[in-house]
């Protein structure tokens, strides 16, 4: 059984609808732990040793955050800078994260259409997440496609429920084993779930 660590970064969690729904749904699952970094390191004084230990103790890392101005919130970037230490996570002898798997769970205000060459934001979400992808590559972590929830402001309660259910489904499948070959063909985990759903025709409720 894989152990999953959600590294959660949200500077205004109390006002978030989408991330609250996602996180509460996922956090209640067995084998899933959460590192709520804006709660634990409000002073940006990240406890590096503790975070490293958490990473070591888990097999799959999820970076869950809302996209702000095309990047993760500052503290998550800060977390990367501090925890992904040279000589530990990468570089000479830096092999402690080798073989782990990781993906991002990203919420955006803009719609999926706006994140396209003709859209307002011009680039796809995947493009904006390139730095994370490269960090994973640098550390020998297998980087999976992201799970994305677009247009979080316009989301209906129905859609919200659906997204949470999908997130839970990902967690449950990944706990048992990650079907990498199958997944890598899709641009996002959402697309993978759609195709899976078509064959399974069941959507688990929360």
């Amino acid at each position, binding site marked *: 059984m894989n152990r999953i660590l959600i590294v959660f970064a949200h500077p205004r969690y109390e006002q978030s609808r989408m991330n609250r729904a996602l996180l509460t749904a996922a956090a209640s699952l067995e084998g899933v732990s959460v590192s709520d970094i804006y709660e634990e390191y409000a002073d940006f004084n990240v*406890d*590096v040793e503790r975070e490293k230990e958490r990473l070591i103790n888990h097999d799959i890392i999820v970076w869950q955050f809302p996209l702000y101005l095309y990047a993760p919130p500052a503290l998550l970037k800060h977390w990367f800078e501090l925890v992904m230490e040279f000589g*530990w996570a990468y570089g000479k002898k830096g092999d402690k994260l080798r073989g782990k798997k990781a993906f991002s769970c990203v919420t955006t205000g803009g719609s999926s259409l706006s994140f396209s060459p003709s859209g307002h934001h011009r680039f796809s979400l995947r493009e904006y997440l390139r730095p994370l992808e490269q960090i994973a590559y640098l550390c020998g972590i297998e980087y999976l496609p992201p799970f994305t929830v677009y247009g979080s402001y316009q989301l209906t309660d129905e859609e919200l429920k659906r997204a949470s259910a999908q997130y839970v489904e990902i967690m449950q499948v990944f706990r048992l084993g990650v079907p990498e070959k199958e997944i890598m063909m899709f641009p996002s985990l959402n697309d993978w779930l759609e195709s899976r759903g078509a064959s399974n025709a069941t959507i688990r409720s929360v």
Partner: protein
Amino acid sequence: MQQSVLFNAILLLAAALIFVPLAKRLYLGSILGYLVAGVAIGPYGIGLIGKEGPVLMHFAELGIVLMLFLIGLELEPTGLRRLRTFIFSAGLFQYIATAAAVGLFFLLAGFSWPASTAIGLAISMSSTALVLQMMKEKGLTRLQAGEAALAVLLTQDIAVIPVLALLPLLAMRTLEQGNWFISTLPGWLQTMVIFGAIGLVWLSGRYVLVPFLRFIARSNLRELLTAAALFIVLSTAFFMSELGISPALGTFLAGVVLAGSEFRHQLESDIEPFKGILVGLFFISVGAGIDFSRLALLPWKIGATFLIVVVIKGLILYTTGYVARLTKEERIIFTVSLSQVGEFSFLLFTFMDRLSLISSPWTDTFIFITAVSMMLTPLLMLVVERFVLPTFLSVEGEGKKSDVVYQSNPVVIAGFGPFGSIVGRFLRANGVEATILDNNPDRVALLRKMGFKAYFGDATRLEVLKSAGIEEAKILVAAIGEWAINADLIEKAKKAFPHLVILARVAHPVQAYELMAQGEEHIYRETLDTSVRMGVDCLVKLGYRRYSAYRAGQKFLKYDEEALKVLFRTREDEEAHILTAREMIEIQEKLLMRDRLYNPSLYDHAWDSTVRGRDE
């Protein structure tokens, strides 16, 4: 019984050690404790000391002499300037009006006019030592009423000088008894001599003592300054008593002269340790000196005189309250606290006796009245504190009977001094209302005006906490500055209201350690964050980048809190107990040792790709 110096010292200390803690326990204040201790060991108690014990009287005299030196030192020019409006209005009014009214009463009662005048001038005095000590214990010094009282006391203290000098002029006969130098002179010359002596003390203070102290100070030996202070006090006292003038007056003057010099604080802190004990000694001797047999002889006469004297004093003090523009409840504090006849009156009455201005039986009567009035003040103050103050304060608020009314706020802040007020303001800025408990009526009144839910009351009393709504509150912020009181509050609140989250303010690690031993978790050292911030700024001023210094500061804070916890977990003695000085040093030492083993510093591995892996 053979009474040696040692035996007397033991007796006095024992009496103080028994009665003072008892009085404190009963919320009666230390002064009453000392007075009762005096009565208990005096001729009308178990009779261990009395008129046959002159050694004790010497002790007590030394107490008065040193105390008046300190009172003199308090008369520093800047303080006088700050209070000058009060002194010229309330101070002068109280003194002159009381002297006139009391004098008139005794004139009508058949005394001669010089005697009446002298009695009036003496009775008008209140007790600086008693009032200052009492106000300090009850935290009333910062009140408007406290300031006004201080001004009145200062006026009286200053007035002692001319009054003592003028008494021989009032006397029908000059000093005849005794073999003092001054008693050989006629009245007007005696006055001249007294003024001369005062002038001499003044001049020698200016031109001999201060240069002398500067010379001593240059030797850089602290104990020499203490010795110099004692030398000045004792020699002035000796000089004055050789002349036949009150030695206490002399040292008081010496204090006044030195108050303006740069040595004021030094001298004060040198004598300070003795002060409390000497003031205590003074009050013990007052207690021992109360001659109850006199009361038995003429109970009605003395009782009536006492009542009339105190009522006249009280009425005029209350009127003075208007002159000083005090509020109603402050007028009451002011009146009650100053209602006694003070220690200067002892001096004045004995001097008047020697001048034959009043007969010896009357001298004894007045001394009796003075002592009893001193004894009554703390009791009256207790009544005021318990019943009068809360009801008056609630008139401004919404409550009717008790000042503290039911309020269910999530947070109760006990103590709204510099620390608690910041917590309260911060919470308010973020929309969280807190119920505030404070024992300073002025502050409470101000806070209420500003819309805070503030109540006057002793937070260590469970009823007060309950009526402040502690049972509905989630959090108690224990922010009282006085550590003993704060610790008391924490212990009681924890026991009585287990649901409560207590956030405790402490001053230093040892206090934090004590609270940890009681199982407290949320402990805030008041200087920790500020000192670290200062350290961070030090690094910045030395050229470090601000963010690196800031990070180092944050790490240090975390490390320091953790170090104390580790130290606590690994302690040898699991029993909770009051730490000895040795243990405190040990704690300090272990903390420093840990610093040497692991020092959180700027140079960790963050943002650094030059380190070649971490060696384990």
